């Protein structure tokens, strides 16, 4: 059983550690010169001629390729050697390899590209193998793109590419075309080149045709304007037998439609002219009925960006003429609309409800899609989810630019809520949310949408809550329906509480007038009788209140309807869940309101503190800092607007206080004056300093470069102190630590304008060659001492502090979760994380009653970025840092325990990876959790592992 547990845990909490990849000696080669990787390549390259078999040669060449770029200067010699080998080799695969290596020389810094190009061109003239030829051309393409656009060599390459187009091999042709597409100079008139490529779109080989179209696309991307006259040819290529050709041709059509949207195209068969963009749109729409999935997907994707198409054509995409036995039939959507407009409801008990109406003239019915007819209807019904979800995206994009189309597409979006694949359903809801600004929901539509609230998937429900929060409802009945459905939802799934609250919070301000009509009903206000007071702890009552309060901001009449107990509830909620409840101007509350209105003067206070901090250094600087730090922490609690920046400042201050304290204690560099107690105090301080500085570095984001450098500098100071302390006061090796320190300093080199401490360290370290710990500490000590009190402080206004909030488990449940000891139990964890810049360090920490702790890497897919549809207006600057939502199931396991016990879940950052050099991973100098930063208070979950009953 123990094994089983181990395995269960092992799978989910494994920390994958990448081994530093040492280049391994090649097994194939037994020659001694290859066994050491660091050997001088020039020596090895001289042995090239001595290798006999082609297999060995190939293995050797592989080795050479891996070891590029060479350190030696004689690259030309290497190239010469390689070319000699090339000429001697009769095997095309060896030659191919050599060409690859030659091409890779472009990666070698400062190497003469032209030289290589010339060599390859020389080789190309004698080469017979098509594969090698093709590879050479692709290398030429790569190398050519490194040249400047007016280089004469480039012209040479292009001439060769053009010449080799006549090669009989398709591979060579394809590569030549792609070379032309990449390298032809688009600034000069290069009509003949484009024409040449155009001709190859008629090639008999589909691969060449595809390559030709792709080359044209490439030219377009590089700024060459494609000619309008190729349009009709490209259109006929849509009927090509090869799907790749169809795809590339479709892309060209799309490009043309954006380049020449207004030019006219004659419809074959009649004299009418349409705009090219419309014609192209119709053509791409037709491709939605293509044979190949890939073409269909591409067509669906491309449609979305054709926003300037004629609305008439656009609306056709949602139109599919229905008929039954030659009689015109209404679609379900139309029928629905009719019953709505006629004011009667479908009885639901008629068979022939969808009875076909008028007879159709057989002549007038066209069965194949003419134009854009029904493209989206087909796309959304496609067999493959790729097509469906691409169609959804496009539909949404088009709807955003055309409100009428948005209204039309609504029914189809709603239909997609019922898709069989969850991702598609979710996407449909998201699309709906996006276009919700443009549409007004009817009652019948809303009814269908609200049905989805019963879905058992949280994501779907929350998506829908977001959507409802963003939509517009048409009538009072709609709003009532909506509120009712949300309350039902809350009853069914109580974990949706916050999401529903947020939904209602947004719903209120969008429909203040509709809410006004509903207030008496919702709050059970009666003109004559006092109704019983509802329980303010009841989540559904809170829901109603939130709707009303938020609506009341924009509709003061609502305020007058409030009864005394509601005012009380308002005050209570305003205090407890203030971010959901707006500030209201309640009559009779003036005294209290006055207090809130009063300017808190926090800014003034902050200025005060700052000026104190930046005063010249006094003798009892630590005390000044201490006081300031104290003030700042308190300030952060009071003023939420400034909190993040102030907290950063406070943390920084704390670090510097600790630095000063360490530096002032005599014991820190002198292990000889061994006063055990003093030594412990210093050690403790240094440990604290480490933690503080780590917090400083990882907990804040959205900083300017200067602010970041300041933080880095402080961290560097902390590291320097630790280094010096270890060198001076302990007998452990500090080699790895000093290397790490140096690499940190190196990283800062690139920045100008470094803070004084970091700056002086960088210059000092650049001056010495030797970075042994002893030397380093001698170097550091004077700098450290010079910078004890020097720290310019400024307030990073925009800084954002990382924080996490575990919503579930709430830690309030008294019912233990039972599971068999040794087996795993999944505990649902739902958390919101703000300002997470490094999601790769996020861990879930589980602490067991037996004091074991585990760090679990949450699955990447479980951590989602939450889109903020309406962020608080006050903090516009925050938006750059995304909010995350972690919803995962934490797998816990435990051995038999006599009674139910608590395990603690919390979210932490594990910065061991970036902060601890790999050589030090096992070193005991750090305490176990010194590189773990807690993000929130742990939540306790009651579990009771039960012993397995034997003998069942």
């Amino acid at each position, binding site marked *: 059983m123990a094994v089983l547990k181990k395995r269960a845990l092992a799978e989910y909490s494994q920390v994958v550690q990448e081994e530093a990849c040492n280049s391994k000696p090649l097994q194939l080669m037994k020659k001694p010169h290859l066994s050491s990787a660091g050997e001088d390549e020039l020596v090895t390259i001289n042995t090239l001629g001595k290798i006999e078999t082609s297999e060995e040669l190939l293995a050797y060449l592989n080795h050479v390729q891996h070891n590029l770029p060479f350190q030696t200067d004689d690259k030309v010699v290497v190239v010469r050697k390689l070319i000699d080998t090339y000429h001697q080799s009769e095997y095309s695969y060896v030659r191919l390899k050599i060409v690859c290596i030659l091409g890779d020389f472009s990666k070698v810094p400062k190497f003469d590209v032209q030289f290589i190009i010339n060599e390859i061109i020389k080789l190309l003239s004698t080469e017979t193998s098509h594969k090698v030829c093709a590879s050479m051309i692709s290398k030429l393409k790569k190398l050519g793109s490194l040249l400047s656009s007016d280089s004469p060599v480039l012209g040479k390459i292009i001439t060769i590419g053009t010449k080799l*187009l*006549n*090669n*009989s091999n398709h591979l060579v042709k394809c590569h030549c075309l792609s070379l032309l597409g990449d390298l032809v100079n688009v600034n000069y008139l290069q009509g003949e080149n484009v024409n*040449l490529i155009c*001709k*190859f779109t*008629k*090639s*008999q080989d589909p691969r060449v045709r595809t390559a030709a179209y792709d080359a044209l696309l490439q030219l377009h991307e590089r700024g060459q304007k494609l000619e309008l006259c190729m349009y009709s040819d490209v259109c006929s290529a849509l009927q090509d*037998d090869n799907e790749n050709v169809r795809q590339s041709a479709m892309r060209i059509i799309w490009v043309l439609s954006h380049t020449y949207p207004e030019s006219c195209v004659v419809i074959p068969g009649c004299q009418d002219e349409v705009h090219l963009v419309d014609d192209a749109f119709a053509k791409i729409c037709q491709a939605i*009925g293509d*044979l190949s999935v890939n073409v269909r997907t591409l067509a669906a994707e491309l449609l979305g960006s054709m926003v300037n198409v004629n609305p008439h054509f656009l609306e056709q995409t949602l139109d*599919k*003429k*229905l*008929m*039954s*036995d*030659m009689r015109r*039939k209404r*679609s*379900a*959507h139309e029928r629905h609309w009719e019953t709505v407009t006629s004011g009667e409801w479908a009885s*639901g*008990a*008629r*068979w022939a*409800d*969808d009875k076909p109406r008028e007879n159709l003239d*057989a002549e007038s*019915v*066209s*069965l*194949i899609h003419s134009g854009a007819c029904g493209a989206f*209807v087909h796309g*959304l*019904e*496609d*067999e*493959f*989810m790729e097509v469906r979800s691409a169609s959804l995206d496009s539909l949404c994009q088009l709807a955003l630019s055309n409100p009428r189309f948005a209204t039309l597409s609504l029914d*189809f979006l709603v*239909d*997609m809520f*019922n*898709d*069989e*694949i969850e991702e598609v359903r979710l996407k449909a809801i998201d699309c709906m949310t996006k276009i919700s600004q443009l549409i007004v929901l009817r009652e019948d539509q809303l009814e*269908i949408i609200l*049905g989805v609230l*019963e*879905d*058992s*998937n949280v994501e779907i429900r929350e998506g829908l809550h977001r959507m409802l929060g963003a939509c517009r409802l048409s009538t009072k009945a709609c709003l009532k329906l909506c509120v009712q459905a949300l309350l039902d939802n809350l009853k*069914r799934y109580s974990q949706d509480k916050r999401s529903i609250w947020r939904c209602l919070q947004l719903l209120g301000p969008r429909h203040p007038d509709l809410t006004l009509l509903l207030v008496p009903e919702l709050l059970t206000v009666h003109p004559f009788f006092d109704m019983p007071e509802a329980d303010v702890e009841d989540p559904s009552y809170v829901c109603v209140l939130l709707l009303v309060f938020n609506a009341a901001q924009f509709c003061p009449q609502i305020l007058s309807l409030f009864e005394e107990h509601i005012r009380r509830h308002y005050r209570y909620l305003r205090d407890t869940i203030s971010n959901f409840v707006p500030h209201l101007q309640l009559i009779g509350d003036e005294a209290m309101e006055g207090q809130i209105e009063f300017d808190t003067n926090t800014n003034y206070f902050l200025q005060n503190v700052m000026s104190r901090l930046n005063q010249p250094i006094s003798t009892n600087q630590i005390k000044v800092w201490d006081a300031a730090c104290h003030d700042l922490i308190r300030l952060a609690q009071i003023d939420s607007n400034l909190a993040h920046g102030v907290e950063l400042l406070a943390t920084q201050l704390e670090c510097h206080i600790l630095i000063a304290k360490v530096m002032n204690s005599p014991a820190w560099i002198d292990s000889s004056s061994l006063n055990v107690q003093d030594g412990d105090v210093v050690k403790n301080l240094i440990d604290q300093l480490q933690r503080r500085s780590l917090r400083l570095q990882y907990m804040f984001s959205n900083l300017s470069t200067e602010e970041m450098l300041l933080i880095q500098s402080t961290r560097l100071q902390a590291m320097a102190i630790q280094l010096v302390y270890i060198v001076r006061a302990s007998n452990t090796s500090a080699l790895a630590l000093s290397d790490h320190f140096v690499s940190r300093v190196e990283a800062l080199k690139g920045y100008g304008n470094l803070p004084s401490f970091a700056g002086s360290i960088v210059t000092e370290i650049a001056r010495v060659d030797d970075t042994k710990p002893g030397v380093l500490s001698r170097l550091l000590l004077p700098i450290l001492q010079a910078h004890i009190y020097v720290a310019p402080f400024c307030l990073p206004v925009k800084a954002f502090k990382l924080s996490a909030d575990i919503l579930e488990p709430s830690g309030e449940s008294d019912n233990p979760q039972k599971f068999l000891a040794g087996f795993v139990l999944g505990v649902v964890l739902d958390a919101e994380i703000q300002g997470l810049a490094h999601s790769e360090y996020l861990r879930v920490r589980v602490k067991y009653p037996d004091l074991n702790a585990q760090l679990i890497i949450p699955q990447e897919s479980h951590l989602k970025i939450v889109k903020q549809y309406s962020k608080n207006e006050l903090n516009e600057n925050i938006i750059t840092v995304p909010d995350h939502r972690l919803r995962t199931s934490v797998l816990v396991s435990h051995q038999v325990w006599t009674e139910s016990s608590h395990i603690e879940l919390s979210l932490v950052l594990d910065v061991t990876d970036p902060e601890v050099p790999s050589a030090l991973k096992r070193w005991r100098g750090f305490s176990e959790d010194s590189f773990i930063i807690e993000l929130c208070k742990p939540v306790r979950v009651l579990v009771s592992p039960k012993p397995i009953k034997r003998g069942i």
Partner: protein
Amino acid sequence: MTDIKVTPLGAGQDVGRSCILLQMGGKNIMLDCGMHMGYNDERRFPDFSYIADGNLTESLDCVIISHFHLDHCGALPFMTEMVGYNGPIYMTHPTKAIAPILLEDMRKVAVERKGETNFFTSAHIKDCMKKVIAVTLHQTVQVDSEIEIKAYYAGHVLGAAMFHVKVGNQSVVYTGDYNMTPDRHLGAAWIDKCRPNILISESTYATTIRDSKRCRERDFLKKVHDCVDRGGKVLIPVFALGRAQELCILLETYWERMNLKAPIYFAVGLTEKANNYYKMFITWTNQKIRKTFVQRNMFEFKHIRPFDKSYADTPGPMVVFATPGMLHAGLSLQLFKKWAPNENNMLIMPGYCVSGTVGAKVLSGAKKVEIENRQVIEVKMSVQYMSFSAHADAKGIMQLIQYCEPQNVLLVHGEGVKMEFLKQKIQQEYGIDCYMPANGESAYIPCKPVVPVDVSLSLLKKEMALYDTVGAPDPKRPCRMHGILVMKDNVLKLMEPEQAFGELGLNRHSIRFTSCIQLRLPGTASRAMDQIQLILNSQNTNYPVKPSDEGMLNLESVSIKMETTDKEDRKSMMISWALQDEDLATWIMSSLRQVIV
């Protein structure tokens, strides 16, 4: 011989008893072998005597069955065991697995319930199935040296396939029944651009364009959900296979999604066996089921349980699937009798009902229905009609035609009047011929005779290299090919001349023409030659002029030589050329004449 003859023995301008006889390239192929469900006499089986009296094996080369519905495979045991046919029969794996279950069920009904005699036996079904060769999608099967068949996915029901039959250069695609819109358990029909001579397509919905499937599904689910919510019982009469599975999946996933608790019962005897096959043939289902079956096989229903008669009186909501589909007998009728008087309950008819059955009466809105023994039932339950048919609609048929680009279309399996409309549309919009023969009527479809010629690869490559080196491809430029056409053993071959001569053991002769022109040119012969070379070079760009050692000029096979005559300034120019360069020589002569003479 080049005509293809198609004779429907059933399903010609009719639905049911699909059986189409195909004659092409001297081969006889039978497509489907179904029975008619509406008849109880000999008319229910196709008239095999049309093909041959007695032994069919000699006159038929193979039989192809498209899917397991009885109107496509019902007459198979009769044909093989009672009429006598021992040739190969082809069908897909799921069809081979499920068809015997259905045949057996039908046999039981016919023999044990209706007491028919002279019907095939269980043993017959078994023996018949032994003769079946199962094929896989996209697998090319060589029936004999000439017939080649290939199956394509057709949607419709599990294992339904379209068959591409090829004899020599002629080919026919037979669709069977197919569906171009995907549903909850099957994908859409798919075929590549095989460009057959004839596409034989079903046309059940020749005059219908259907609404989006989603609306119907949503309506269906919402109605069931509402009914269950108010504690009512839902009765869904279904046919045994196909739609039943689709509806099950639909309800199952919905129950899962919405966390519903009301029980769903499934009371379709033989479906349980068939369900096992559905679980096995996952590759034949749609994307969703294929992708998720590793976690959970969608056909392993969590919420759907087998029905027991005693459940009928259990209070509380439930959903029951019961056969038969038209409410004319069996369990579905019993349940209907019990539940009809309660307005909370609901009846959902997912398919078409033949007039005269209880189902049809109820659907047409009758409030009081009389059943078998003069019993009158009051219908208070709500009645819904939901069409979940898995045939291609008119648009789908047109789409399939667009996909495979046939030269002719032949419509079967539909009503004549409706076919007429579709036929007209096909002719109008694709400009191809369309046929719709009635039962027993033969359609002769003329095909252009195609003469295949084998070309040796080396010749092809050589010519292609020539073509490639000339320049960019130009569709307008003709590409000529030089070779020798050899007819040997009834096979035409295009060969390189050398190879052809070698094989035939002939010596190669070539014809050369020689002509002599008298010129008036001063100077020596060699100087005159230089002059001519200059002239040719200036005019001719395509062919290089090569001077040879003996003082001759060569252009391709044209050679020019100069000889001095007695007179000082007169020279005779001899020019000789091979037959293939006639044009070039003519051109040289005319241009030289213009300049010099």
